[in-house]
């Protein structure tokens, strides 16, 4: 491993499950933005279990994704947040327009 960021996506009913692995920085943000540009989806669940570090460039991309989904009147839910990332999201205001769930099941119920 040389620290490369990985993005895995999976279609689940009316949403996409997006799993990230690695540092969410500019490169990661571009990959995320590209996915959303190619897939104008309404709902998204982000599983950040394998991402323990994020910088403000990565956050700016996530904010854009949140805005896009809000414009489509969809929902975005985050799962498995590291405590430091959860705190970062709170401070940067991400939870004003997105949610956090304890499990994939509860996230799916929220989107049902």
């Amino acid at each position, binding site marked *: 491993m*040389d620290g490369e960021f990985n993005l895995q996506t999976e279609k689940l009913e009316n949403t996409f499950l997006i799993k990230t692995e690695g*540092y969410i*920085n*500019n490169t990661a943000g571009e990959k995320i933005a590209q996915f959303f540009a190619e897939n104008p989806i309404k709902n998204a669940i982000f599983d950040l279990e394998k991402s323990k570090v994020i910088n403000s460039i990565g956050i700016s991309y996530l904010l854009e994704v949140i805005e896009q989904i809000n*414009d489509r009147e969809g929902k975005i839910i985050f799962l498995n947040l590291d405590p*430091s990332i959860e*705190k970062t999201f709170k401070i*940067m205001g991400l939870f004003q327009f997105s949610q956090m769930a304890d499990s994939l099941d509860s996230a799916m119920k929220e989107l049902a």
Partner: protein
Amino acid sequence: MEQNLLVEKLSLQAESFQEGFKLLTQSDSLKGIFKNFGNLLRTNLMITDLHLLHKVSPESDWKVIGSQNFDDADKKYLENNKQQTTYHDGGKYNASVVLPLTDYSYLGILMGSKLYEEGLSDFDKITLQILLQVFSSAYESFLNQKKEKQFIFDLNEKILQLNNLIDTGIDLAKFENQNILFEMALARMVSLTNSSSALIRVAEGNKEVAAQQVTFPPGLPADKILNSNYKIESSFEFRNTLYRFVLSEKESRKGVIEFGELDMMLLEAISRQVRTAIENNFLLKESLEKERIEKEMLLAASIQQKIIPEVLPVIEGYELAGENIPSREVGGDYYDCIDMGNGRYALIIADVAGKGIAAALLVNTLNASLYSYLQFNLPLTEMADRLNKLIYNASPPDKFITFFMAVLDSKSGELDVVNAGHNPILLLRKDGRLDKIDAGGIGLGMLDLGIPYEGQKLVMNPGDKLFLYTDGIPEAMDKDEIEYSDDRMIEFFIKNADKPAAEFISGIVGDVSKHVNGEPQSDDITSMILKRT
């Protein structure tokens, strides 16, 4: 009449213009606002052939927005355009527009054919001008919103940095091992400064080779960070070890940028926090080690005290007393009087070179071996030889025991003695003669050369006194480092030997204490007196 119709049509479109303004201001990106404006133009003016272009400054080149089939040569319609809007009769395009925008960039519009291939009517021209004004206002509003969002984002980022810095200080203080500490510090450093990667390199002394190297992201080769053209560094030295912190490639949405003053401050702040954590951990370990040693010392002292006799045997026709005063550090003095049966007693005094646990354990070994050998009634010199071999094999080269032993036949007063490197034992005869007993050999465990120990046979007559001691008495020093001395000890012995045995022992201890006058005791003080009554 025609004028009235125009006004009526425009008033009908007013709502559409308002909707257009709303749509434009809600665009999610610069590309989005241009795209939405293109759609507005197409629907309001029924244009089928429309191209939008943008250039960020008067000197830069026009960039086509969205169009797939644009002929670059058509940019000439914009280059020669001195006016904001130019209408072309019979050309490829009905109109071309160069619209200066609030951020000093330009929007270029090339409008080709309409749906029904008509030219632009007056109404179209007025609509176009209104839409251009709508776009100008919406674009300015969009930029202001963007600026406002960026301002809020920057403000939150600063709050986050401050918060992270405080949290980092707390979190780093809780680390359990250095690798975890470094991994945590690296993660916080890159996050706070938007760096792509980071490195902590630990090297001892002036060595070039790293003793420890941790990178972020994990697994990234250190050379990639060290050889980067965009990096900042901070370092500190602690206990002859150099800790080097390197951050590489500050990220932005537009690519790699130079690190700023704030980044350097953040890097230094975290490296200081790491230093504090390492120092605190070192001090904690040192204090725990000290505590552990003190506990071991107490344990060793308790072991030693258990083998020092609490009560000496009562020997008929003799008076016997002894005392051991250990120094603060666990020492290696030992004395005993073992009842061998049939009126025979073994008097022992010994001193292990050195102090601490090793000395206490060696005394313990000597004590256990003595009890074992005494059962076999071995000649004293042979016993000394065996003890020498045993201690030699059981102890490190710098550890040995000075040892004196006398086996007393209490009925006859015969003394069988051996002195293995111990201070001369003093025998004061009733008539005042003083014999110094030093026959024997080297200290136990010093060498194993097979040189036999030499014994000595003496007889204690009534009125004779045997004084056994360790060097803690003559070598006790006052604040000027003046020793109590052999001479003063012998003088005290001669003057006070007639006193009851216990009184003599407490007396000499008191005299030594008077000499040192409160100076800390650096060695064990052990003495024993045997008087034949």
